[in-house]
């Protein structure tokens, strides 16, 4: 058994770090289960099989969206930390601060949404938090801002610490593989360091955008008389939101780079020139693509809109040419067993490609005119997440508990089928909803788009398949947890 994650003679510090990774992943999986079931509740409500009051539906919508974004960001960060730990020394203290910060943030979010009934959606588009229309009290908006502040601060500390750890061993040019890129030199820097640096720098920029956004919110909320420009706030919101979600994807991809070669019986990947080029380009494009969220704002300058489409188109290419071809080449003729972890990493990469194409299509201004804020949008980002980064991180977690506990992985077959069939069936209903012009984020569907209810009914059936697969996964995972912890 190849053991990337299980070091031969781990030091006490390395063991402690491993335990924290296990704690992070387990916490994330628990949150995923809870927040995922909330998603099922929403689908049941849209299917007219359940009748939630709208204020509860939209509070759940907010909790589900922010919960998922946050959960997979922290899970991805934990996975990245575990991988980085092989090469550099991320601080356990920073990870712990982030952990407790996240827990407090979760409590605040639960308070604001479930008790306060705050329903602002995951991107809380300005100035909605200030217009509760009698549904949520003022304190809920403040608790929500506190949630954002605490989550943002603790994650910034975490991101900065990883960068610090990388910087203490590598020069910037090395971490970004510039000698390889510009001079074609061989370099002893694993691709994961490059991906991490790109993701972390982009992530930091996204988090700083959130800081600016929050400062503007506070300035207005504290009654300074200042009012914000809705267009600027929207730009900041999607800058931060898009970058954070996008780099979460990259964090999962880091897991693929780290684990997939070994699981396919191949040596670790080297930082080749095309890898260096692709990820350096990604750093630029990830910051520009967010403009595609504002196509329907005619007040946005035209060249921003065009830049949005061009950046969105181009950002798919390095991903496809480098990561996807690499995964395919590692798969072909590998003869390795299809364990769940390997299968999940493979399927996750495929989901990235499929969701990516859905995103490219929707990032076409001409198409966006018909798809913007229809179910096509959750279709594409659920593909990215559920069938992409979630599978990658679940694959990582599966491998992690098995390596730590010293067990062989069980065969993947039924697990793979259930997750793939359930997942894609569930997603297909979103995509087809987009084709039928069904709006996203509707607690109930009016007559014009009543087909949305039928699609929701079908979707819940597929969710049950997916759920069965995830329960099998959870059973395997939980079974080994104690052993993994004690040997960790």
């Amino acid at each position, binding site marked *: 058994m190849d053991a990337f994650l299980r070091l031969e003679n781990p030091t006490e510090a390395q063991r402690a770090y491993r335990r924290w990774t296990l704690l992070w992943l387990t916490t994330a999986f628990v949150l995923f289960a809870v927040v995922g079931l909330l998603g099922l509740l929403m689908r049941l409500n849209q299917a007219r099989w359940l009748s939630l009051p709208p204020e509860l539906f939209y509070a759940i*919508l907010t909790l589900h969206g922010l919960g998922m974004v946050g959960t997979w960001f922290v899970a991805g960060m934990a996975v990245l930390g575990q991988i980085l730990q092989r090469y550099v020394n991320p601080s356990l203290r920073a990870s712990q601060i982030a952990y407790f910060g996240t827990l407090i943030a979760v409590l605040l979010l639960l308070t604001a949404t479930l008790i306060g009934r705050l329903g602002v959606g995951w991107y809380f588009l300005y100035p909605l938090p200030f217009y509760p229309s009698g549904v949520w009290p003022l304190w809920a908006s403040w608790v929500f801002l506190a949630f954002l502040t605490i989550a943002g601060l603790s994650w910034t500390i975490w991101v900065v610490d990883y960068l610090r750890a990388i910087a203490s061993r590598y020069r910037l040019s090395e971490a970004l593989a510039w000698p390889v890129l510009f001079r074609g030199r061989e370099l002893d820097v694993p691709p994961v360091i490059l991906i991490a640096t790109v993701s972390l720098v982009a992530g930091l920029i996204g988090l700083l955008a959130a800081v600016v956004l929050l400062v503007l919110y506070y300035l207005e909320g504290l009654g300074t008389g200042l009012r914000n420009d809705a267009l600027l706030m929207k730009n900041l919101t999607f800058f931060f939101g898009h970058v954070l979600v996008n780099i979460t994807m990259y964090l999962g991809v880091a897991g693929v780079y780290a684990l997939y070669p070994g699981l396919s019986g191949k040596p670790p990947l080297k930082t080749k020139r095309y890898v260096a080029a692709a990820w350096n380009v990604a750093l630029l494009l990830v910051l520009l693509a967010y403009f595609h969220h504002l196509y329907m*704002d005619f007040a946005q300058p035209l060249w921003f809109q065009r830049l949005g489409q061009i950046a969105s188109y181009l950002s798919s*290419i390095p991903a496809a040419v480098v990561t996807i071809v690499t995964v395919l080449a590692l*798969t072909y003729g590998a003869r390795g067993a299809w364990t769940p972890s390997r299968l999940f990493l493979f399927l996750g990469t495929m989901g990235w490609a499929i969701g990516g194409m859905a995103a490219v299509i929707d990032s076409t*201004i001409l*198409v966006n005119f018909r798809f913007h*804020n229809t179910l096509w949008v959750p279709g594409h980002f659920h593909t990215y997440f559920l069938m992409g980064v979630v599978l990658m991180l679940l694959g990582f977690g599966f491998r992690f508990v098995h390596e730590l506990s010293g067990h062989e992985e069980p065969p993947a077959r039924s697990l793979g089928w259930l997750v793939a069939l359930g997942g894609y069936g569930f997603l297909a209903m979103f995509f087809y909803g987009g084709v039928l012009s069904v709006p996203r984020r509707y607690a109930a569907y*009016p007559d014009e788009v009543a087909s949305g209810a039928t699609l929701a009914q079908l979707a819940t059936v597929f969710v049950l398949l997916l759920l069965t697969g995830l329960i099998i996964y959870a059973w395997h995972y939980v079974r080994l947890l104690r052993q993994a912890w004690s040997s960790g």
Partner: protein
Amino acid sequence: MTPQMQAFLVWLLWVAVIGIVFGIAVRGSSSSSPPAPERVDRMRLLMLLVLLVLAGFGLGLTLPRAPYPTAAEVPDRVVFVMGKQFAFALSEDPITNEEEYEEAIAYGSGVEVRRGELIEFRVSSLDVNHGFSLYSPDHRLIAQVQAMPGYVNRLRTRFSEPGDYSILCLEYCGNSHHAMRGVVSVR
């Protein structure tokens, strides 16, 4: 075929290509021998070129057709649209403040226009962001624009078929977002 369906089919085509390529890799994982690195690099280069050409083609085909009118043309009719939690007010008279909104809404969230006319919707919002969208009588989304506070967005449409075009809100705006609506009657 609706534009939505066309986009869907393009995507399905891609899904099929991706599925086939990943399927080949899975099939090849047990039977074949690993590909030589040079062959992988050649494929990578080929794929880069193909994707660059496709992206260029896609951009060239779609960017100039982005639905932002560039040439000014005098519309036959102006309809003022104001969003406010949770109804759209529509009127041929300006709606710029709460009173005008209330006056307009007193007559219902609708307006009548003639088919074939070039209509300019001047869309704004009194409170939060809303999404002004037009649904054809057979319930397909045909046009949309954001209603953003502090800005007036000008959306132009020509209705070729008579009937009632529903307006739904396409930007989440709060508790009755799904019930926020209006109508354009085309005669």
